């Protein structure tokens, strides 16, 4: 009970810390989900294509990115690239825009690799007869993909994709290593001023849960909508 009280006091007193962290985490996750899905779709198409060099490239990319920790990728992107002369531009009016860009890039690159595998599995799970039927009805291969295979694939991969989106929200806590003031960074700041680690972490956990729960409900809603379409 005392612990709960502590959490409430922490939350009300350091409300501004947490809310700023939530805003930054949402910005990060939103851009990452968007860019990661685009990148992942491209990679999946490359991997399933007939052109060997791009197929090979997509394979190497996916294996390498999935096989290395996100934290190291973030560090190299933000601290390593400037050493070879590539810097993220600082935009006017937005403070720390270079950090945000590096964080979003690293997370999109990372998430893209996972999304690519999800989409590939979805496309491959659509029965081959569907493609054959569409092709024999006179659909071009692009049309077949767009109008026959992908609609069925997306319905199948939604749960896995939703899983990935939830993961992105939680994993965004890693970008605090390059000084992006996301929810985890702000929580650490609260801890370092109050020394109340467990209570602060519990507050953060609840906030993360609210965000991920909302996301998974959204995905479930989309799943239901899509199920209606087929009956």
């Amino acid at each position, binding site marked *: 009970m005392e612990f709960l009280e502590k959490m409430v006091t922490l939350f009300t007193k350091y409300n501004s810390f947490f809310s700023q962290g939530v805003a930054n985490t949402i910005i990060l996750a939103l851009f990452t989900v968007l860019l990661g899905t685009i990148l992942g779709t491209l990679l999946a198409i490359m991997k399933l294509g007939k052109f060997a060099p791009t197929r090979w490239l997509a394979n190497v990319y996916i294996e390498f990115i999935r096989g290395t920790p996100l934290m190291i990728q973030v560090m190299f992107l933000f601290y390593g690239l400037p050493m070879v002369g590539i810097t993220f531009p600082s935009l006017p009016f937005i403070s720390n825009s270079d950090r945000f860009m590096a964080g979003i890039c690293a997370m999109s690159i990372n998430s893209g690799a996972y999304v690519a595998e999800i989409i590939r599995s979805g496309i491959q799970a659509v029965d081959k007869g569907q493609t054959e039927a569409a092709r024999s009805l006179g659909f071009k291969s692009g049309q077949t993909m767009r109008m026959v295979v992908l609609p069925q694939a997306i319905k199948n991969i939604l749960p896995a994709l939703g899983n990935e989106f939830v993961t992105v929200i939680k994993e965004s806590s890693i970008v*605090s*290593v390059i000084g992006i003031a996301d929810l985890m960074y702000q929580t650490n700041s609260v801890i*370092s001023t109050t020394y*109340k*680690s*467990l209570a602060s972490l519990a507050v953060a956990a609840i906030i993360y849960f609210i965000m991920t729960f909302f996301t998974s409900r959204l995905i479930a809603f989309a799943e239901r909508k899509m199920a209606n379409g087929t009956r």
Partner: protein
Amino acid sequence: MKKFLAIAMAAVLSLSLAACGGASSSTASSAAASSEAASTGASSQAASASTTTYDYSSYTGETIEAIKAKGKLVVGTEAQYAPFEFKDMDANFVGCDMWLAQQIADALGVELEVMDMAFDGIIPAIKSGQVDVGIAAFTVTEERAQEIDFSDVYQKDEQMLIVKKGNEDVYTTKESLAGQQVGAQRGTVQSQLIQSALPESTLFELDKWPTLAMEVANGNIAAIVVDGAVGNDLINSNDAIAQANFTFSEEEANFGKAAVIAKGKDDLKELVNAVIANVTSDGSFDAAYDEAVALSESMGV
């Protein structure tokens, strides 16, 4: 095909099992090695500093008895802060703070167990009783004193402003740092110093000093504020940064370092204070400090 898969799976399983076994035994042996190294290190240092052995048997109390019954003194630290606490080539905990920890363990007649954790986590670990003493170059501050007890001060150090090479004469005054980002490790006294002494600058916090040094080297932030000893180490290990011609005044940054003990453990605090008084007055702590500086410099690449 199925048979081959089964064999492959079995091989992977047994490999992972073997890996587990190997890992646990290696940690055990390394722990043994480190305690051995710590004890030999302590004895060689004691010999080199020609310290007299002190008698601490008169110090007794509830906490001391509990530690003696346990047979080990658990010291919490963050071993990323050379020359105070860091790891040598064999991953043993070294540094003058670790030397001091060994002296305290010897005074109690128990083994030393070092718990490496995030700096932010040390005070909570002391409060929860997981750690007996925190020795991590803790600077005495009022805010911390409300949460835990400090021992007597065992070391004083100047605060240093580090900037990108070439900017040594650019940031020499507080006015020149106005509007600039100045960094420090989160939860440290340096981050408080920036807020109190450089109110016109923006505080920038990260979890690790080496990362902050990279921030300065890349020009993301103007400067960082560190302990003199640590600052020298950072500069030695990074060609792109240098010390600025900037000094904090005496009253701004007169920081002493002390060990941290949970409130109410006065018997342990008295013993720690006695050890600190002995090793600082006979010069053996200074010798350990110089040794740690030399070791950390020799490890630089």
